[in-house]
């Protein structure tokens, strides 16, 4: 009976609840939309700022101005027809170095000692580069230190050592006979080698370094002087 009498009240309450719920949804949507619009307007403002900055940069770096700088300072000119390459092959051709022959270099006889057969370690089959098992093998240089010594510029005269052991020279050593003279007199262009220059006074003043810290308090002085220091510095 009570339920029947309160029926209208329930109806009104549920209607009101539904309306309120709808309203809350709408409110939520509206607030989301307003946030979105806020972001959008910020984007537009940022775009406008970018546009202003781009315009300013474009105006300051206008072609007319660049041309003026070019005429006055840079003096760049249009590339000539022979400065263009038509493809990768031509580009690669440009970097090829021309071998120069030094006619004053002493004749260096090529020496290729016969390869020495060394037995492979027991239990290990010796292999050549291709990986095929081979009976003969080339001997490696004794150590990297020996290689370094051969390529060094400090060797005074280059004599062909009667090398018997290394059958194949390392690449660094192989290029060295091309310019033996340059390798033999490495320091002939240095100014120190010239007697006049060596005797001349140095151009720059010798740098004198303080023996001890000049800002440190002097030893043996009473401490009241150091207390006065800020005042005297003023």
């Amino acid at each position, binding site marked *: 009976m009570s339920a029947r009498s309160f029926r209208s009240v329930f109806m009104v309450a549920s209607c009101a609840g539904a309306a309120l719920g709808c309203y809350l949804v709408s409110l939520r949507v509206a607030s989301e939309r307003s946030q979105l619009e806020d972001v959008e307007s910020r984007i537009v403002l940022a775009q406008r700022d970018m546009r202003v900055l781009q315009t300013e940069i474009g105006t300051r770096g*206008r072609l*007319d101005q660049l041309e003026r700088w070019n005429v006055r300072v840079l003096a760049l000119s*249009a*590339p000539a027809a022979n400065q*263009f390459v038509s493809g990768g092959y031509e580009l690669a051709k440009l970097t090829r170095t021309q071998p120069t022959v030094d006619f004053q270099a002493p004749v260096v006889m090529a020496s290729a000692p016969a390869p020495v057969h060394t037995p492979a370690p027991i239990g290990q089959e010796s292999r050549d580069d291709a990986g095929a098992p081979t009976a003969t093998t080339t001997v490696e240089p004794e150590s990297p230190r020996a290689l370094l010594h051969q390529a060094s510029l400090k060797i005074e005269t280059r004599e062909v050592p009667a090398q018997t052991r290394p059958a194949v020279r390392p690449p660094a050593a192989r290029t060295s006979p091309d310019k033996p003279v340059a390798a033999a007199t490495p320091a002939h262009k240095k100014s120190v080698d010239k007697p006049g220059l060596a005797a001349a006074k140095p151009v720059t003043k010798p740098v004198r370094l303080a023996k001890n810290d000049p800002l440190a308090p002097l030893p043996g002085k009473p401490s009241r002087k150091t207390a006065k220091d800020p005042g005297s510095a003023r």
Partner: protein
Amino acid sequence: MNAPSPALVAPRPERLRLVGQRRQILAVMHQRLMFGLLVYGGVIAIIVLRILWLAAFGDHAGRKEELTALIPERGDIVDRDGQPLARTIDAWTIAVHPTKVIGDKLALARSLAKLMPEQSEEQYFAMLRSGKPFFYLRRRASPALVEAVNALGEPGLAIEREADRLYPQTTLAAHVLGFTDIDGHGAAGAERAFDKYLSDPATRGQPLVLSISSGVQQALQHELQDAMTHFSAIGAAGVVMDVHTGEVLAMTSLPSMNPNVPGAATPDQMFNRATLGVFELGSTFKPFTLAMAMDSGTVSGPAEIMNCPDVLPAYGHLVHDTHPFGRRCSIAEVMMESSNIGMAQIADKLGKERQKAWLKKMGFLDKAQIELKEIGRPLTPGSRWGPFETMTIGFGQGIAVAPLQLAMGYATLFDGGIYHPPTILKIGPGHPLPPGRRVFTADTSYRMRSLLRLVVMKGTGRKADAPGYRVGGKTGTAQKLINGRYSNTINLTSFAGVFPMDDPRYVIVVMLDEPKATKETFGFTTAGWNVAPVVSKTVSRIAPMLGVAPDMNREPNMSEVLPYVQDAKQDAKKD
């Protein structure tokens, strides 16, 4: 049973009256209450309905409608690569309301004169005392000045932001772009021609894309300005055009103007020599005459031999050559050495009617069909067009066209003979290539290539050659008409070139108005000495930008002309 009769228990009359009154008063009160209730209920209902309406459909309070899209006050103009050429910016404007000034007017006038010295103290003071409501003091003021004026603290000074047109590249392509008036409407150039597009809110969000290329324009403008200064010319014009589409890649007219301050430009600077000015362009017309004759069949080709005397008497006049052959010569030689006598004879064979029909077909008798409004009407002999005029038109005197039209003619001749109207808009999705119209046969177009290349290789245009770019073209030196007579000393020199000649892609036309002789030109003022080097320099700069690769091993088919040329003369003085 014993119910009392009403009459017996009737109340006292005063009481009865009282009851009646109370009832009446109660009824009135109920009525009033009900009315008030209805009114309140109505008001509340209206408010509730309004709130519901707003909640459902209304906008919220913080909405900023004007900021949801970035649409400028006036559309941008950009070049074909998207570089901005014209933009609308917010500029500061300083103004004064003299009636609202509260401070000391004399002191204010003094400080204004100190900040903006373009007017004197007295003028500012007169302005402040005039009683008029409003004066502009400075438009497009710098931020530093605005700050200083603001620091004066005078409420009568108005500092506002105002949309203003800015041309970031200043003088670059000034005549193509034009400028706007004080109200922001286009007053010249593209600003005027596309005013509707640029100011319509529906379209102005999209920039207007011109066919101009900034780099090409800058190169042309700079080289031409250099030559104009060097040869003390009074003016110059230049056009670079795409042969296949008719797009104008660069167009300049010198002396130039700064569209940012159009008020400072003189009429001479505002004058667009490339489209509005019409000039007798001289020998640059000769290739057209030869192409007409070859297409009409009156001349067989470069191999034809004709008589080239020192002086040609014709219709009561004498036609001269600067370097006469004095012998029989081939058509190739006539073209190479730019012989007036030879070309006059070719034009005479062609005849007036056919010449007129050809010129009409090429568009030389009408205004150029370009979007700009500053278009000059070509000048022709009109009713005086007789056989001698036909001859002079044959070598380019007696007909005056704009340099743009000359470029258009060369583009037609070297696009296989097909005419495309010139345009300053980029050909693309929004602006498709209009269908062309055949003027010359493809064969004539092909045979003209080697002839014009010959002019640059061995003839008068040798200084126009840009190594590797196969430039072909024709020099033109026209005598200027001064007070009704052709002057012997004052010239108008031009060069119309096409590159690369083995597969023509671009036309370049340059013109110098009244160049003077210098030491390097040995006293000559002909085109081979002053404008041809401009073409060489410009082409070497712009061709790499335009994607034309230099190639020293390619040439047009020179075997068509070289056998018909006797030993080449060693000078390029002639035209």
